[in-house]
């Protein structure tokens, strides 16, 4: 059981100094909202809600997770009330447009709040995350009637939303979806089984709106024959009031999982369940990708969030736990708290620096989403969209993998007490594990990066990114100071590694695609580490300026040193990964199956 306090100081620094809050706030769609005026207040109040309502339920959710009773999922005690408060607080509608009852705030504000929800209670946060995805999908592809009836209630948090994709034989490969949809008047009857449906059933809202992939009778094979349907748990009358239970749709079991016990992972049986077509027939997968991209980005934020939570727990413990003597002290003198031991410092700095790098990357991505979606100039929108598309698999894969590492380091700092469940460190480690798996495993993300995003423009988006990184490298050289000089040198090596690996990937993919695929996760991680280094270098530039101006020296000095640590101790991984990549996939792929 650990406490959580939103890292407001760093969040504000990143949105203002690195992610360009002012630029986003000036976009025509946002300029009437006064985003810069309300940003601090929103983050502070969200932080309060996360710390005081959601965080105390995190451990309860782990120990007293969701249960299935008589076909109904009973959520963790306290979750339903918290969800009600969350909805009434208007947090569910933060990013939704005003005409649907939301606040229409930009992603640059939404993303820090997502970090807070997920850090304070990852299981809980999945419910609004899925609802936001379903809302977004319906907003783009639903009929006018569907939008009018369902969206305002989903935005208000009265009804929840889910995405029902996976089936027993269709996981990472959705082309094998078997659920059938048979026309029945203005509606369809759905038959099949969906598994791993996050928050697929619960008692926190009056209704649950499922978006379901299924095949029409005459649909072609494969991904081009999948359509999207809306299946509510309770049927909805035209006036929006609730009708009968959609009795063909039942939760038949929930999974016993390694982590996120508070979130029910459901198997849903569709037996003549009533559904309505969303969008055009056979376009389901494309439409679903609207919400999948969004979800992937948010899973990247989850990796960041759970790392932050694990770090806060470990840091508190390191400042409290007395054990051993100082390096220079004499035995028999006073014992010290373990934060005084160099190896504990190494672990804390490793956690802290990577968390700050992840935060910067995720919030910068949020800015790209805002500009790509809302800038008046099409060329500007396009440029930001290209950067966004490139970075989606990177943040999803890299941050979720780091989430595993950082929370594991957190357990390590607790030592034996970390292996004991009671301290709560282990929960963060277990909860983190799913992020690298769902919404496309790290392997899937890497394949998307190396096989699609990198090659579709012949590497142009990546080369543009590298060019941007070089600009920061140049600024570091001009700015002066020992810290920035060191960061410049290490960032230079990192960019070189990224460039070298990128050239190899581009040169190799045509003749040896499997070798590229075998190296794709290495490549994804390399891109992640160098992106992190790039953002930390930008942070260091700002920090040095602020320090010179005497502005909040404690924070900015720590930022400068943390950026230097990242450059010296984390960035060299990029060079090692480049060597591995350039060695190619031969040894990875050479063994015959029987030799394993």
């Amino acid at each position, binding site marked *: *059981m650990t406490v959580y306090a939103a890292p407001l100081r760093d969040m504000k620094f990143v949105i203002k100094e690195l992610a360009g809050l002012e630029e986003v706030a000036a976009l025509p769609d946002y300029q009437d909202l006064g985003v810069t005026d309300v940003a601090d207040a929103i983050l502070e109040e969200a932080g309060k809600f996360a710390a005081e309502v959601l965080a105390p339920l995190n*451990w309860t959710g782990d120990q007293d997770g969701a249960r299935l009773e008589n076909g109904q999922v009973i959520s963790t005690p306290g979750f339903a009330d918290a969800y009600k408060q969350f909805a009434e607080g208007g947090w569910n509608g933060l990013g939704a447009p005003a005409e649907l009852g939301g606040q229409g705030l930009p992603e640059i504000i939404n993303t820090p709040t997502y970090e807070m929800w997920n850090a304070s209670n990852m299981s809980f946060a999945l419910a609004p995350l899925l609802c936001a995805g379903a809302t977004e999908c319906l907003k783009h592809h639903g009929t006018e009637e569907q939008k009018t009836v369902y969206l305002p209630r989903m935005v208000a948090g009265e009804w929840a939303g889910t995405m029902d994709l996976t089936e027993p034989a269709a996981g990472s490969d959705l082309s094998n979806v078997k659920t059938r949809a048979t026309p029945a008047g203005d509606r369809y009857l759905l038959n099949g089984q969906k598994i791993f449906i996050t928050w697929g059933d619960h008692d926190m809202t009056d209704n649950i709106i499922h978006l379901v992939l299924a095949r029409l009778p005459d649909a072609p094979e494969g991904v081009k024959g999948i359509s999207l349907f809306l299946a509510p748990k309770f049927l909805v009358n035209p006036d929006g009031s609730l009708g009968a239970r959609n009795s063909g749709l039942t939760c038949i079991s929930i999974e016993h999982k390694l982590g996120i016990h508070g979130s029910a992972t459901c198997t849903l049986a569709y037996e003549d369940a009533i559904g309505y077509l969303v969008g055009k027939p056979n376009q389901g997968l494309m439409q679903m990708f609207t919400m999948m991209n969004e979800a992937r980005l948010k899973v990247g934020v989850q990796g960041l969030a759970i790392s932050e939570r694990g770090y806060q727990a470990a840091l508190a413990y390191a400042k*409290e*736990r*007395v054990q051993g003597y100082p390096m220079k002290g004499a035995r028999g003198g006073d*014992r010290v708290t373990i934060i005084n031991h160099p190896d504990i410092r190494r672990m804390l700095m490793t956690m802290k620096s990577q968390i700050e790098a992840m935060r910067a990357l995720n919030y910068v991505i949020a800015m790209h989403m805002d500009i790509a979606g809302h800038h008046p100039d099409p060329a500007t929108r396009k440029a930001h969209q290209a950067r966004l598309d490139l970075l989606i698999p990177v943040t999803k894969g890299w941050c979720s993998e780091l989430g595993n590492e950082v929370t594991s380091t957190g357990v390590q700092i607790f030592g034996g*007490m970390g292996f004991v469940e*009671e*301290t*709560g460190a282990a929960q963060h480690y277990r909860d983190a594990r799913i992020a690298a798996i769902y919404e496309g495993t790290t392997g899937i993300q890497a394949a998307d990066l190396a096989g699609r995003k990198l090659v579709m423009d012949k590497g142009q988006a990546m080369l543009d990114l590298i060019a941007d990184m070089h600009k920061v490298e140049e600024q570091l050289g001009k700015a002066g100071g020992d810290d920035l000089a060191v960061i410049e040198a290490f960032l230079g090596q990192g960019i070189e590694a990224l460039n070298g690996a990128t050239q190899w990937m581009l040169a190799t993919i045509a003749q040896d695609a499997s070798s590229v695929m075998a190296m794709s996760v290495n490549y994804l991680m390399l891109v992640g580490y160098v992106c992190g280094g790039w953002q930390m270098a930008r942070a260091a530039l700002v920090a040095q300026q602020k320090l010179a101006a005497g502005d909040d020296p404690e924070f900015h000095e720590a930022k400068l040193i943390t950026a230097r640590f990242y450059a010296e101790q984390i960035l060299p991984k990029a060079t090692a990964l480049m060597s591995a990549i350039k060695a190619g996939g031969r040894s990875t792929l050479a063994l015959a199956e029987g030799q394993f």
Partner: protein
Amino acid sequence: MSVLVIAEHDNASIKKATLNTVTAAGKIGGDIHILVAGKDCDGAAQTAAKVAGVSKVLVADAPQYNHELAENIAPLVAKLAAGYSHVLAPATTMCKNFMPRVAALLDVAQISEIIAVESADTFVRPIYAGNVLVTAKSSDPIKVITVRGTSFDAAPAEGGSAAVEAVDPTPEAGLSSYVSQELTKSERPELTAARIVVSGGRALGSYEEFHKQLEPLADKLGAAIGATRAAVDAGYAPNDYQVGQTGKVVAPELYIGIGLSGAIQHLAGMKDSKVIVAINKDEEAPIFQVSDYGLVADLFTAVPELTKAI
């Protein structure tokens, strides 16, 4: 220089906090007078007259001073204050209610909850919940001060023979009236709000011993009872007694840990206690590293002895 001390009393006798305030007044110097304002408060005036070091007791005995309503008391004290360099009152809720009102009527600052007197115009007081101490120097002609009782010893209640003098009452202000009072019942306090917590660990050995050893001590101290997770898991105490990481977090003025080793999860729930006492027969028990007073002893003899001694 002369100091007027406002008595905290129940009409029959003065309260101990008044004696601590007299000591603080003594450190300022000059004559010390006590004001007893109340209704039928002669008994209190007589006990005030016996306090060592007090030269005069002023008595304002009138119905409007019953229950010491601020609107009625403040004008009286402000009127009398004209003859003094200092007006002191104990920092009790009763005096904290009317003293700032006195200060404002006199157009002077109040110095709240002093813990030390440096000179006649300079005092020490805690701020930020006691995390910082600060020296406050007043330039006002009359110093209006409340005194934290625990920072000054009580003046001897006997030995003085002050003159008792009646003063004219000020009129009923007609702004407020007393309705009723409900004093907290003295049953065992709630764990997280208790001033004293007595906590037991697995060394108590059984449900029966846990209660037999701890309850008499807790009753005598007016303390809440807590337990370690080990004691709760062993069935010695109910779940809601558990202090620690997964139980309740307490920060009482006095925490007495009995027969518990001080596992880190337990420490997380009580380490902010003001004074920590540990009784354990294992002198290597980690609880001794955080305790202010450690007693290495068999709890089954030490606890009954302690219960008897307090």
